[in-house]
């Protein structure tokens, strides 16, 4: 499994001065390192796209974090408690280097079927939390409040140091160019359209061929974290009145997110409240009790559920 290889890879790269911290790798380093583990007889054409899908999935699962310069790293180690009352089914998430410490702290043995599951004997929640925090592991519970999810907005505080090169001055390879986000009737991924220097306007949201998001605030370009850029995309949709349409079968509780990129807090939140649909990639199934939450969240983002 690609996702398992990625978590192994990211958990094995440690900060040189403090090995308790994981090191961030760029998307290209991840792709190349994974590629060097493939058989040379294997077709490698859409491999990069597969890795990118896997990275998105891991982000939604709360396993990894994404930052600027196409960087990814393991999320802080945590144990996820699905239900407050049931302390026995704890799942480990994030930096795998802490898995052993988690077992030590809770005096558990590795589960042979699912190494990420910790079978604790009933313990007091607070004491468990305390034991874990002593070894740097957090105990998370599923929070279903929509309130905490960030609202779409234009970047502001993020515009600190300008991007060091004008992306329009770079001779990109054939078939690749700087793209600008323009809301319209198209689906989300097709709203990125080729952009020329002449048509560039203040506060344009751009994406360059290497994958970084840039914001143009005269006279400089600034790189945006993917999450900030995605919130800016939704803000732009709201502002221009072209909401993204997302297929939602309320009766069945199925949400089809294929082709939709979400801010990672939203993705994590939706993933935590749902289960994967085994037949369709990026389709999530929600229990009846959670269905109104889906609507609330997308309402906050300004999307239309269809």
């Amino acid at each position, binding site marked *: 499994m690609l996702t398992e*290889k990625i978590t*192994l*890879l990211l958990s*094995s*790269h*440690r900060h040189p001065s*403090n*090995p*308790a*911290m994981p*090191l*961030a*790798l760029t998307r*290209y380093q991840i792709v190349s*390192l*994974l590629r*060097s*583990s*493939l*058989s*040379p*007889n294997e077709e490698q054409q859409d491999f990069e796209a597969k890795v990118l899908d896997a990275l998105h999935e891991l982000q939604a699962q709360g396993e990894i*974090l994404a*930052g600027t*310069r*196409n*960087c990814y790293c393991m*999320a*802080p180690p945590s144990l996820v408690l699905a239900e407050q009352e049931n302390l026995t089914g704890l799942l480990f998430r994030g930096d*795998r*280097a*802490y898995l*052993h*410490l988690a077992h*030590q702290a809770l005096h558990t043995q590795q589960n042979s079927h699912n190494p990420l599951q910790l079978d604790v004997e009933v313990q*007091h929640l607070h*004491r468990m*939390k*305390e034991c874990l925090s002593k*070894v*740097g592991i*957090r*105990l*998370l519970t599923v929070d279903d409040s929509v*309130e*905490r999810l*960030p609202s779409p907005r234009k970047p502001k*505080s993020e515009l600190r140091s300008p*991007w*060091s*090169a004008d*992306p329009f*001055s*770079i*001779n990109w*390879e054939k078939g690749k160019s700087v793209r600008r986000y323009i809301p319209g009737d198209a689906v989300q991924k097709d709203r990125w359209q080729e952009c020329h220097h002449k048509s560039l306007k203040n506060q344009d949201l751009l994406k360059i*061929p*290497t994958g970084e998001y840039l914001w143009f605030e005269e006279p400089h370009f600034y790189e945006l974290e993917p*999450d900030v850029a995605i919130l800016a995309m939704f803000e732009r949709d709201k502002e221009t009145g072209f909401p993204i349409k997302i297929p939602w079968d309320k009766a069945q509780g199925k949400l089809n997110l294929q082709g939709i990129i979400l801010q*990672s807090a939203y993705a994590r939140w939706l993933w935590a409240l749902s289960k994967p649909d085994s037949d369709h990639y990026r389709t999530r199934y929600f229990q009846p009790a959670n269905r109104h939450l889906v609507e609330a969240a997308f309402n906050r983002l300004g999307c239309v559920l269809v």
Partner: protein
Amino acid sequence: MTSFNFSISEHTEELWQQISSHWTHRDRPAGSRFLGSVRLPKKDTDRIRNSLGSNLRRLGSNNLTYDSLRERFNKSHQDWLKLLTFTASEYAYYDSSSDEKFWQGFCRILKLSHSQKVENAFRHIIDKGIDNLGLVRAKGGHKYVSTLWLQSGIPSSNLKHFSLLVQEVSDEYGWWELAHTRSHELSQELLDFCQEKHPQWRTLIHFLKSSCSEKEEDEVEPISGQLVQGIATVAQELERQGISPEKLKDENQREQLLGNYDLPKNFFLRNWDSLIQVLTPKERPKGSSGKIISRRQKPLSLVLDVADSLYIQLVLPEQSPWKKEWKYLGGTYCQIPEVSWQGEILTSGEFIIPEQVVHVRSVAELWTWQLLDHQGKCLIDWKLEGVASDLPCLIFDAWSGDRLPLNMASPIIRGTEEIICFTPKEIQLDLSNGIEILDSCVPSSIRGWQGKRFRLNASKSAIIFPSNDKHNPQLIHWQISSNKQPILTGLKLNGNKSIYLETPTFWYPPTNQETCFKISLENLIRQQSIDIITKKFLPSDKWQSIPLEQWITEPGAYEVRFYNQEHRWSYIFEIKSAYQLFKTSVERLPATPQHSNIQGRVDKLPIQYKSLDKFWAEEVKIEELWTLEEVTLLLSNRHDKRFSIVRADSSGHLNISLAALYDLLPQSDWYALDYQRLGLEWQRLVETKPISWTWENQAISISGLQLNCQYSLSCWNFLLPQREPVDIEILLAEQPEESISVPLKLPAGIYHIQLLSSESSPQNFGWWCSSNQYELPDETKENEYLEIYCYTILDNEPIRDFWEAINCLNYDYDCQWIETVISSLQTNPYYFPKWLNFRAILEKLQALLEPPSPLISQWYKLELCFYKFSLTKNRFIDSFYSLVSRRLASSTKRTLKNGGLKNLILNQMYLDSSLKNGNYHFSFLIELKNLNNRELDLLKLNNLRFVLNSIKHKDCDFEIKFIAIKTEQIHKTIQNIKARKNKIIKLTKKSYKNVN
């Protein structure tokens, strides 16, 4: 044979064919044949030599040139060349010695007079002969003499000494070290070793010297090093496979055996007889004195730190160079000014220049570093080609970080698919098809430069470098080598070292012919050869794999070599298991974040400002967060609040500028900023105008509360720790007030009080209590354990009792909460009545975080007997008991304290009392920390007696006994008493009041 006439080509042809039929290496590929493998007895080769001598003499020494010989001996047939070369090779093996120059000796045995002209002629002939015969050639140095020596390995006169030397060197370093040292270094070590231990072996030293270069830049064939390296490899393999070295005696068996091993390319040894003994396994220390130290100068290099900083660095590897002429400098000072390194020249071997790394901030055409002696004289210089002014560009392999040097005339990049290319910022590169930009701005440590990361997706392409001549730009070609090389695949770590997270797999490229390879595997950590196997690859258009898992199953460092006659590939790699942290293996687990603002470090949060301007101007830096960690911010004012998410950078630093949040909320006269890390508590960072409060007997007075905001006090009772805190709502007046007094109408208890508000995170006010000592919460009526627990607090009882009571309560407390209330007790003003001890409360709270360790104790039975004791009313027995027990407790304590034995009393229990014949007997059980005899005496003696005297009834005499009791005996009794304990305490309390 002497009758052969070299002028007749049939003669030379016949003679050469006779020799050739005994030549084992005849059918080997050209360039890998050793002439020493001709198996002819010495008497035959002597005859050939004599025949050659007489033919040459006929020509006369004066006329001896290549051309004249060719003229005389036949132009078209080259056999005479071969015969002469063979004779020279045989001479090198049997007859050359240190006493005579090589060519002079050769002339002597051919009975020719030596001259420079003859010597030149021989060199010329032998040069041709070597090519003609397809012999291995030695590089550099005395290239003909070395090549001739190389043919047989060791000259026969040296064999005995050489074997002894090998024996000694292997005893010193072990076979493993010898087999894994570079042959150049080994040659030098052999020479030094022999010169030091056997200076009298002049012939061998002469031979060993020819394998070592006099000067650094001279290239010499390290024959002796290669031989010892090969012998060591053979020795290891024989030992591992349990093969007797006797097998090497037979030439056929030897060839077959050695064919399996991965030996140096120029390894051939004609005679093994004297080595058999050396190779016979015996008990010997495994490489006692460790590594062979290389005295060679190692070059300066330019690398890109791809694993971490992405800085361009000049790196000088650790080295211990040594030159003979330095021996007069021993003990003096030396320096490398370019890196500000200073050291002292010690005797050879001990002089080490540690690795030097310098970040490159600006470019140079040539980088030069020098090692200077104490007088500033240059001892070594390291030169590295820099950046040419007409091609200002530095290219590195994106994976290894190695610099890819460019040939100015036709710059070309080979052997890598990903590069990072640095140029001055203003230079715009063009790319031909097939090159993908992976990163368009890689920061550079060189001022004014910037990098780009490229990948080559085609078999070849070019980077176009702009030049003044627009029609003729400079092209940097880039191609992947066309003939496919075998590769190792496997998940590995980023960086220039091959560190795999799984056992790699070897892949052989598509091939159209059947190929056989030997594979040797070694464990470099255990210094063990794992196996040597033969693998055949059949013709295939697919890559063929050999999973190494079948031999390598555990983490470690390995070397795997694939080789046959034509090719040789070696892979050194490490395998690591998935990284796991252990408590002991980590220096620092993720710490609590460090906060600082523009003024510097912040010790106490929140940062508070009276003016709004200062609030908005604040910039907070949080350090020691997780790499790329998400942090939720909450900005609030009186009316509203806004959540937002920010992210730490890849070093775990986060800068929060409040100015950037300025327009998130409508105008207000009060703001606060809180932050939360995923799964952790909210923390207030900055706020305007703090709230202040003062405690009163039955109320709290608060100022600084905001209108239009809902507040309440949350009061947590330490006597009822499991109960939800009691909420007291605060009703604010319509008009702003200076301060508001909130009555604290709370049931009996010791409270920690927090201010909750709809706008911000809770604020700790501190601790408050105004009930009296024996006022118990109502809940204790139904819960005996709770009552015991309360008494341990109200009575300021020892920590151990408190801890036991907590355990009986089964209280699942939140340590974070306990830490909060402890810090609140320590930092905020508290309001306690006199009977309540601040320290006792603090210690009890702290005990929840660090439970007291079990104590070793001893129970004693304490018997008191008051003689002729008269009590008229029974109820006074209880009160008297209480008085006695309390006084006893405090006096025992005092006694112990006076003796330096604080807190020794752990438990005391009433056992029995009876009134018989006017004598009143008491029995107590007392549990004390383990006491020694002196301490016991102290207890028993006058102090206790004195105290008892003070409570003595007027006309009564008394006696006291102290009896140590075994735990097993008393166990049941204690159980019984514990069951009654509650009752006793009640009784005690009542009686106590009565007595007072």
